[in-house]
């Protein structure tokens, strides 16, 4: 049996590496979880499956006596101890393991917290360059996928189950057959992955089958960037922006604050320079639909996706990079002039970024501009592509399709995500798959593709398997399992190894072997090295060195010349990855489905976004269902007017409208793939015909205006300059007049507080999912969200100001403000919400009877009520997801943010048991936040960061005049507009 030693990051005392058979302990854990049958169970379904009947009977006979009995005498539990104590088992103690999660090829380092041997919380790995301790909605969401009861299980061939050994034998046979012709009839359709071990395996497979074809494919690729680099430098290079030094940033449709890869690092660098002062950066964004990045821009220029090139070119002309200026609308021309001026004013401290959706020429032009501005080496560096061969190409799928058509493929191994669903328009890849005798589909879930494949191999979740990966920039991390596969499943490495007859060697051996070979360390000394890497989560000395690269301006110019500019004023359709589901791979993830879109706040849906003017021109209205047609292809999609959307353009997010996957993903939203050519981003000549019927959206925030109320405040940098120390904010902070004698918290050792910096917050929603994961917050589904019953404890309010066509945006995370004179408390008839000595507004779920009075009286409306039992029955496997430190709330109970009191109390116990003081406590939202916008800590500690921020000149209290004295302070957002454009 292969050793499956996982090593925690934080270790209290050195312990001899023991062996743990997790299979066993998992069952035990399930048993443990399953026995909780309290009226509230921590870490288990709070109500037994036979809820309705049970509780109903209970209610019928409800009386003081029964209530009392029910409250104090739950049925007797079982205690199920281990048979073999795992080495680092400490009941209830949380261990963090360093691992990494690869996403379209690029890895982000994580620390995954495991309680009693089950992963329950995902955090970023501070030591990892792509995370810096933060984590995005997608990394957080991965945990829910792990425990998804609808995951694929086992290995199947033509509907017959196969054992792992049986499968290996079969593959041996196949391999022998293919040996004959050097693998001429063998093909691989691979998900992009920078894993060195995997690359090594592929090389060896290629060696065995020289004629085999390897296609890397994903619905969303960055080919344009690569091609752009090839044009500019004559060879493919990865451009790595660094915003630390950048003072003027021009984003050409580049949504660098979201998406995968490095958005976390970029967000942090961007946010760090959003405080007023000399170091403050200025962001220009040119884009069609409002993106997260656009929402954070100081100047946002809305234009159709294909017009961005012209704009870029206009800027470039002003910078003297290329000659001929294109035709532009006067205001855009003006903008281009100002932007160019600002960029050149910040020579060497500016940056031009081109988005993945822009054609190669624009990327090339961006490179040229950066070179001209002397930014290379300062705000942008170039290095060898990390993905290299594994870089996905949209063309690969049609190519493969041709081969299949020609009957050149007998065996096709697919690790790429769901090609049958995401295949380009007009290509029925599913049907082709049926033609392949041995189509082996390796996926974590049964989906549109697996239905068509003769072989289905369940994939292990990254948290269940050994492996490795590389971040953008090349830093390698090891992937170690936190739990044995919950279902019979296979890791990618094991699958590929099986084609080398090494499928039974165990993924860990492959990984270890590769790194041992690579590190060239004497095997005797390798082990400690290996353990250090596992603990740190990064392998030192693996980053790609930056290379000097010279721009071939002529080539750039000519590529621009070849660029086809948009003709006529037809409506243009733009595709975009969805913020929740990316390309659709998260469609089965209820957290991400329910997560409101950061801009439109639409939940459980995508929609055809368009500007108000365009809607008027086309004679359609918000919420109408319309037919979007490109030539002879068409889809039915609901329309949504999006403030700030470019005119004559419609944006449709990818990833929705799945016909399969799971109960969660089925039939949610509209499938955009039937309209999309391979790798296409912008399609001209869209016809929009209003159809019958209105679509009912589930929108988490219906009202976008602030109605002139002082809620989310912003200043321009110069206005702030004159505001000498935020004098204008004085009436929004400090102790309001009161008849109550204020309780004195200064004597307390700790008095907890929080601050939220609106200048830093980008509205990425990372905090929302982190909170949901930490606090066992339920998802409620589309109907309930539409009814206004979404359960998120922290929400990112987003307000628009200025002209609806082209508004300014501000996002404001709002969670319980922990008011010192909390309006919710005095109205609760049963003392279910009261104050702690340290100033927390406590919510005692087991005391709550659910009058909802507290919520009515909460001016911030941050309380959430369990209107129904959101978890009628929880599959045992999902009970493993629950954070055991937080009560799972039952029906009829109010819940809310508690500043992660379970973390505070945990830290207190750990500290005081050792006679120490409470050290560093982070709330889940704070820990996830890439922008460091949320800071939590002890207000009574003059050194603490939160104390300093509470005394900051930008500090103000939300709804200060109500005299609620919130413990959460907000710092006003500072905008940094260009005076020339003001």
């Amino acid at each position, binding site marked *: 049996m292969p050793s499956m030693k996982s090593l925690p990051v934080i270790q209290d005392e050195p312990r001899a590496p023991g062996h743990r058979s997790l299979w066993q302990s998992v069952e035990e854990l399930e048993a443990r979880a399953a026995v909780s049958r309290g009226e509230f169970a921590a870490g288990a379904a709070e109500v037994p499956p036979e809820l309705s009947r049970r509780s109903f009977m209970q209610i019928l006979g409800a009386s003081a006596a029964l209530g009392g009995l029910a409250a104090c005498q739950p049925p007797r539990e079982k205690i199920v101890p281990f048979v073999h104590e795992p080495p680092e088992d400490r009941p209830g103690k949380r261990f963090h393991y360093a691992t990494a999660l690869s996403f379209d090829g690029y890895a982000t380092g994580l620390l995954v917290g495991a309680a009693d041997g089950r992963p329950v919380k995902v955090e970023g790995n501070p030591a990892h360059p792509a995370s810096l301790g933060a984590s995005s909605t997608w990394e957080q969401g991965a945990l829910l996928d792990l425990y998804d009861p609808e995951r694929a299980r086992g290995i199947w061939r033509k509907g017959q189950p196969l054992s792992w050994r049986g499968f290996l034998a079969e593959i041996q046979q196949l391999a022998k057959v293919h040996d004959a012709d050097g693998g001429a009839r063998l093909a691989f359709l691979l998900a992009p992955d920078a894993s060195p071990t995997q690359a090594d395996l592929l090389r060896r497979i290629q060696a065995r089958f020289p004629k085999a074809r390897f296609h890397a494919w994903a619905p969303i690729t960055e080919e344009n960037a690569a091609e752009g680099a090839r044009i500019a430098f004559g060879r493919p290079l990865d451009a790595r922006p660094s915003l630390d030094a950048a003072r003027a940033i021009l984003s050409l449709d580049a949504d660098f604050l979201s998406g995968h890869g490095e958005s976390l690092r970029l967000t942090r660098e961007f946010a760090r320079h959003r405080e007023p002062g000399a170091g403050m950066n200025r962001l220009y964004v040119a884009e069609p639909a409002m993106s997260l990045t656009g929402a954070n821009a100081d100047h946002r220029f809305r234009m159709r996706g294909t017009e961005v090139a012209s704009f870029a070119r206009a800027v470039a002309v002003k910078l003297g990079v290329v000659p001929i200026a294109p035709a532009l609308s006067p205001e855009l021309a003006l903008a281009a002039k100002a932007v160019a001026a600002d960029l050149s004013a910040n020579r060497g401290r500016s940056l031009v970024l081109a988005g993945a959706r822009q054609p190669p020429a624009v990327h090339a032009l961006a490179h040229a501009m950066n070179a001209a501005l002397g930014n290379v080496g300062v705000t942008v560096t170039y290095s060898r592509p990390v993905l290299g061969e594994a870089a996905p190409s949209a063309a690969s799928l049609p190519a493969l399709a041709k081969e299949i058509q020609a009957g050149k493929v007998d065996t096709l191994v697919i690790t790429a995500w769901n090609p049958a669903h995401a295949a380009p328009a007009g290509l029925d890849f599913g049907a082709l798959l049926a033609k392949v005798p041995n189509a082996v589909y390796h996926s974590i879930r049964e989906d549109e593709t697996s239905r068509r494949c003769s072989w289905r191999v369940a994939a292990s979740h990254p948290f269940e398997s050994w492996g490795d990966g590389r971040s953008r920039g090349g830093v390698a991390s090891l992937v170690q399992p936190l739990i044995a596969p919950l279902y019979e499943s296979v890791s990618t490495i094991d699958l590929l190894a099986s084609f080398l007859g090494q499928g039974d060697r165990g993924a860990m051996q492959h990984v270890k072997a590769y790194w041992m070979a690579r590190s060239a360390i004497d095997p005797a000394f390798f082990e400690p090295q290996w353990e250090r890497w596992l603990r740190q989560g990064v392998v030192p000395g693996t980053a790609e060195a930056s290379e000097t690269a010279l721009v071939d301006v002529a080539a750039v110019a000519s590529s621009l010349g070849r660029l086809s500019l948009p003709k006529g004023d037809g409506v243009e359709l733009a595709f975009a990855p969805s913020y929740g589901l990316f390309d659709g791979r998260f469609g089965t993830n209820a957290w991400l489905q329910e997560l409101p879109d950061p801009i439109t706040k639409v939940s459980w849906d995508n929609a055809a976004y368009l500007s108000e003017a365009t809607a008027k021109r086309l004679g359609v209205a918000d919420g109408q269902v319309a037919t979007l047609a490109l030539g002879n292809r068409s889809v039915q999609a609901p329309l949504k007017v999006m403030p700030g959307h470019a005119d004559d353009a419609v944006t449709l997010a990818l990833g929705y409208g799945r016909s399969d996957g799971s109960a969660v993903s089925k039939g949610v939203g509209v499938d955009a793939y039937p309209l999309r050519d391979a790798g296409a981003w912008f399609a001209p000549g869209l016809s929009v015909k209003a159809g019958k019927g209105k679509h009912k959206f589930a929108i988490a925030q219906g009202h976008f205006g602030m109605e002139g109320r002082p809620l989310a405040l912003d200043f321009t940098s110069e206005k702030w300059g004159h505001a000498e120390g935020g004098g204008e904010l004085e009436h929004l902070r400090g102790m309001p007049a009161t008849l109550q004698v204020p309780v004195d918290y200064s004597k307390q050792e700790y008095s907890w507080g929080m601050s939220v910096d609106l200048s830093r917050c980008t509205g990425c929603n990372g905090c929302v999912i982190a909170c949901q994961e930490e606090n066992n917050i339920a998802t409620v589904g589309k109907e309930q969200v539409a009814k206004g019953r979404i359960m998120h404890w922290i929400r990112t309010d987003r307000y628009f100001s200025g002209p609806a066509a082209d508004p300014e945006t501000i996002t404001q995370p709002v969670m319980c403000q922990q008011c010192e004179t909390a309006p919710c408390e*005095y109205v609760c008839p049963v003392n279910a919400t009261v104050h702690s000595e340290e100033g927390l507004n406590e919510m005692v779920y087991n005391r709550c009877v659910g009058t909802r009075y507290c919520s009515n009286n909460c001016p911030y409306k941050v309380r959430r009520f369990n209107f129904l039992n959101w978890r009628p029955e929880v599959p045992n496997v999902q009970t493993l997801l629950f954070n055991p430190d937080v009560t799972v709330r039952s029906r009829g109970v109010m819940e809310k943010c508690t500043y992660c009191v379970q973390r505070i109390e945990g830290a207190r116990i750990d500290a005081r048991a050792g006679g120490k003081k409470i050290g560093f406590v982070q709330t889940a939202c704070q820990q996830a936040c890439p922008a460091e916008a949320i800071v939590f800590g002890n207000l009574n500690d003059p050194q603490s960061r939160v104390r300093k921020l509470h005394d900051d000149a930008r500090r103000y209290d939300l709804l200060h005049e109500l005299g609620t004295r919130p413990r959460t302070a907000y710092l006003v957002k500072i905008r940094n507009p260009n005076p020339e454009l003001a």
Partner: protein
Amino acid sequence: MSATRVILGQYPTVDSLYGAARAMQAAGHSALDFHSPYPLPGSDEVLRLKRSPVPFIAGAAAFVGVVSAVLMQWWMNDIDYPLNVANRSVVPTPTWMPVTFELGVLLAGTSIFFGLMALFRFPKPYDPLFEVEAFRSATIDALWLSVSVKADQVPSVSDELRKLGAAQVELVPEEA
């Protein structure tokens, strides 16, 4: 000493009723009572009744209610488990008022009802008077005078009552 018997006399008007009563009192019969479908003005004076204790009962009960309400709230919220509720002051007398008032009223009200029951010795579904068929009119439209006398005086008193204008005179049978 022989048992007392109750004699009933029915009178057409209040005045004749009162007249008879006064005469009876003059004759030394003090154990009198009227029975009427509705309260008779001035009957108290005629019958020389003492002041009713009901107001006192109500007042006492109200006082008990108020005091216990204050003690309850004070002990529960400020002594046994003092909690910081929204930074409100420790002894929030204003917020006590509603409960205090209501509890005072509740006790006063209930005590009046049960006090009356006690004074009437209710429930008392059986009463010898009910044996007299004609007495049923007492709650409908007739005015009755009841006199309890020594057994040997029954005939004389009956005659007396008739003389005083009784429309009919009934002898209440002895309790079986």
